């Protein structure tokens, strides 16, 4: 084979690794019953491919070839190590007899294994601190270093969480399965929560020094698309729509100088119309399902904003109505606060102020900077300057992110003019 051809094959192996390694891994875990053994087998299979394919050519079904090679390599390795640990012989025999070589059988639905992988990484018996890096590493194929950078932490910390999670999966025997129907809604919710946490981390990180960080929002959206393809559940649609609609405003959310721009003041021409179209289509599909959950309602609210030509022309009555439904589906003080903002837009700032004060009186969200920032904004619009100042100062004392602090400082100075 010519050098040119060999180079082409090498490029092909690299491309397959990026595109298919997670599918191959998901199937190997299924066949071998263990994350670490599967990962080792995956690396070995690609190593053999890199050596053999330039000589023998790329096989007809590369993915099945990789799974088959990984499986044989793992069984082989167990037999070799069985000299020191006799139980491995038994394990190798069991894998050989209870699973079949993917090259000889009709395709096992690969989608099932990808879903098994997602549900296992997001198993509720693992802490969110473990679920997130497990999902990003095993499902999204980010490196430990990339995950650590994205969360501004040390690679060793992330590596340790992954090691512990894998140990728990093995020792507590968390099964590699798609949960049965009665448990599915709850388990899907756990997966969606992980996805939304990843998205939000990316969303808020985009203010910081983000150039060297992996775009977590994009990863979450990619994961959302994959999950929707595997499991067309209305809330999966709802969350994907919500993420797309938030993402559509990413260009408009910060000014050239890196300052925060509120929804009201954003240049709507900067909103990404393709993402909005896709988001709205998904919201409509989810709403049509008649099984409407909190993510779909939040996405519907984002869709009303996306469809409005300006903040003033927003259908605030509809937004308030959607918040009412959301309060019923999932009561939370954060939703109450957001609802207060919508009510203020519909009925005037005095009504909004009443609602926020009621929240604070109940002792809810008193340590949350946005509660005070919202209160300050209502007072400012009502021309109650002294009260506005006190609330802006309180918000400033609680806010942690630099752009938010700059924004609040600016509002505080404007009060003096």
């Amino acid at each position, binding site marked *: 084979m010519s050098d040119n051809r060999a180079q082409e094959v090498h490029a092909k192996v690299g491309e397959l690794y990026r595109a298919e390694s997670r599918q191959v891994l998901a199937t190997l875990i299924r066949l071998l019953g263990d994350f670490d053994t599967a990962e080792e087998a995956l690396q070995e299979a690609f190593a053999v491919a890199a050596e053999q394919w330039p000589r023998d050519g790329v096989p007809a079904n590369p993915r099945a070839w990789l799974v088959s090679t990984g499986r044989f390599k793992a069984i082989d390795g167990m037999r070799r190590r069985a000299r020191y640990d006799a139980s491995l012989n038994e394990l190798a025999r069991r894998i050989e007899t209870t699973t079949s070589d993917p090259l000889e059988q009709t395709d096992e639905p690969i989608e099932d294994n990808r879903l098994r992988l997602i549900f296992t990484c997001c198993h509720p018996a693992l802490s969110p601190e473990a679920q997130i890096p497990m999902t990003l590493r095993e499902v999204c194929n980010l490196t430990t270093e990339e995950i650590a950078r994205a969360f501004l932490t040390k690679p060793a910390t992330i590596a340790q969480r992954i090691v512990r999670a894998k140990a728990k999966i093995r*020792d507590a025997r968390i099964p590699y399965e798609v949960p049965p129907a009665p448990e599915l809604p709850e388990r899907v919710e756990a997966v969606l929560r992980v996805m939304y946490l990843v998205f939000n981390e990316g969303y808020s990180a985009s203010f910081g020094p983000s150039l060297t960080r992996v775009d977590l929002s994009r990863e979450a959206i990619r994961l959302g698309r994959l999950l929707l393809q595997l499991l067309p559940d209305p809330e999966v649609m709802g969350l994907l729509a919500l993420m797309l609609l938030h993402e559509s405003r990413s260009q408009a959310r910060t000014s050239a100088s890196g300052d925060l721009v509120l929804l009201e003041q954003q240049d709507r021409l900067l909103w990404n119309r393709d993402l909005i179209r896709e988001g709205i289509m998904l919201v409509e599909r989810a709403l049509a399902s008649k099984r409407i959950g909190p993510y779909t309602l939040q996405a519907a609210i984002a869709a009303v904003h996306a469809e409005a030509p300006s903040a003033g022309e927003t259908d605030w009555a509809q937004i308030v109505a959607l918040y009412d439904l959301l309060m019923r589906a999932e009561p939370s003080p954060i939703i109450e606060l957001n609802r207060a903002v919508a009510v203020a837009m519909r009925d005037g700032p005095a009504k909004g102020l009443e609602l926020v004060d009621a929240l604070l009186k109940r002792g809810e969200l008193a340590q949350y900077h946005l509660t005070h920032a919202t209160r300050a904004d209502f007072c400012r619009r009502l021309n109650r300057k002294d009260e506005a100042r006190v609330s802006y100062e309180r918000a400033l004392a609680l806010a942690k992110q630099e752009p938010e602090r700059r924004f609040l400082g600016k509002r505080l100075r404007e009060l003096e003019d």
Partner: protein
Amino acid sequence: MKYLCLVYVEEKIFSAFPSQERRAISDEAMSYCEKLQKAGQLLAASPLHPVETATTVRVREGKTSTTDGPFAETKEQLGGFLMIDVPDLNDAIRIAAQFPAARFGSVEVRPMKELGCAD
């Protein structure tokens, strides 16, 4: 795979139930355990006397110290246990979730190490 399900209950909460309800709960727990036993999933189970009856024993530098009750004052106390044998954690979680005390207390599901395991 064997799991030990440790059932934690706030004793104050349980003793505040009307006696009829308490009886109904223990009847339900008994018949649930019987069902698990018939299915071959239960190895052992027992409720425990209240925490005031507990004694904590420690041996330090050869000296035995015996103290009244558990050392830490926790809100929920160990009220009983079930030892089960099921294929995986999801089955163990299902069994724990159906145990009556899970509705007002909590059940800690711990995988048991095989005897003779090195680690």
